[in-house]
């Protein structure tokens, strides 16, 4: 094993975290490598130094009481929030959904009424001029009126009037 690979494993060896096989390989390497032996000596001194800097503190006597108060407070806040969410779920959301359906129905009825009125007017036999007007508008036939007598525009209008108009009852 190369020195660099061994050195990365040295802290694990010192902490007793290296596996049996790793221990064997590292020990074998250390026997033959003075540089890595020096490295493990230094790391060992450092570990001692780090272990000495280990000030320990204890929890204050009222640690649990303070924590319990916070738990109760948090649970109260959470319950208030959940109540608000429940209320929203039970009232605002159904009310909103109903309003959307009602608005949709009203809009649909309005649109449907306009279309129905137009169709009814077109299908009425008394409204022949209205039908002609609708056709002229939809095909932009008014633009052909500027052409001279018996020109292609007049022929086209005549053909449409004779053959393509809806059958009148």
């Amino acid at each position, binding site marked *: 094993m190369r020195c660099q690979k061994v050195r990365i494993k040295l*802290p694990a060896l010192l902490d007793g975290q290296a596996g049996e096989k790793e221990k064997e390989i590292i020990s074998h390497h250390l026997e033959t490598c003075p540089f890595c032996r020096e490295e493990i000596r230094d790391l060992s001194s450092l570990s001692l130094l780090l272990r000495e800097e280990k000030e320990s503190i204890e929890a204050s006597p009222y640690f649990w009481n303070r924590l319990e108060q916070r738990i109760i407070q948090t649970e109260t806040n959470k319950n208030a929030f959940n109540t608000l969410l429940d209320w929203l779920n039970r009232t605002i959301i159904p009310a909103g959904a109903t309003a959307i359906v009602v608005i949709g129905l009203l809009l649909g009825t309005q649109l449907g009424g306009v279309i129905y009125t137009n169709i009814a007017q077109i299908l009425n036999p008394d409204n022949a001029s209205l039908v002609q007007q609708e056709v002229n508008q939809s095909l932009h036939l008014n633009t052909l009126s500027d052409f001279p007598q018996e020109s292609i525009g007049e022929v086209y209008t005549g053909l449409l009037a004779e053959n393509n108009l809806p059958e009148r009852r």
Partner: protein
Amino acid sequence: MDESELIHQYRQGDRSAFRQLVEKYQDSVINVSYRFLRNKEEAEEAAQEVFLKVYMSANSYQHRTKFSTWLFKIAVNYCLNKLRDKNKLPSSRLKEDLPAPVEFQPDRLLEQENLNRSVRKAIDSLPEQQRAAILLNQYGEFSYQEMAQMLDCSISAVESRLFRAKENLRRILTPSIKKDEI
């Protein structure tokens, strides 16, 4: 009641079971937090926040992970976030940015407190990941596998972070190590 039974009861919302878990681990959590925050009041406040979070997220605890590992993972994350918020800790630092080796006065060499202060200062100067690894290692009660779970990394990453951290510390503290050996 053994710990697994306590954990089961706590997950059902039993506050007295949770109290027993708190009493078992409160000093350890405070001490781990203290290593990161270097302030007793802040460490206790951190432990309060950690246990509150543990209580409120009982449902997210999975039995596959050891309870203590999960608890300390929350504590480590809380402390690292706290340090980031306070801008005490740079998220990444190059080796070149580390402080120069500490020189000790001969007459102060035997003063343990001064030495400890130098060690703390050297640890505080490490990049975040190395610092977290060395602090958990220094606490001395966690296996590399537990540290890997707490730090969300592999065991080989823990080994590598510890190696780099110790290399940096050795470089900073070399004069004290050498003189200590004399």
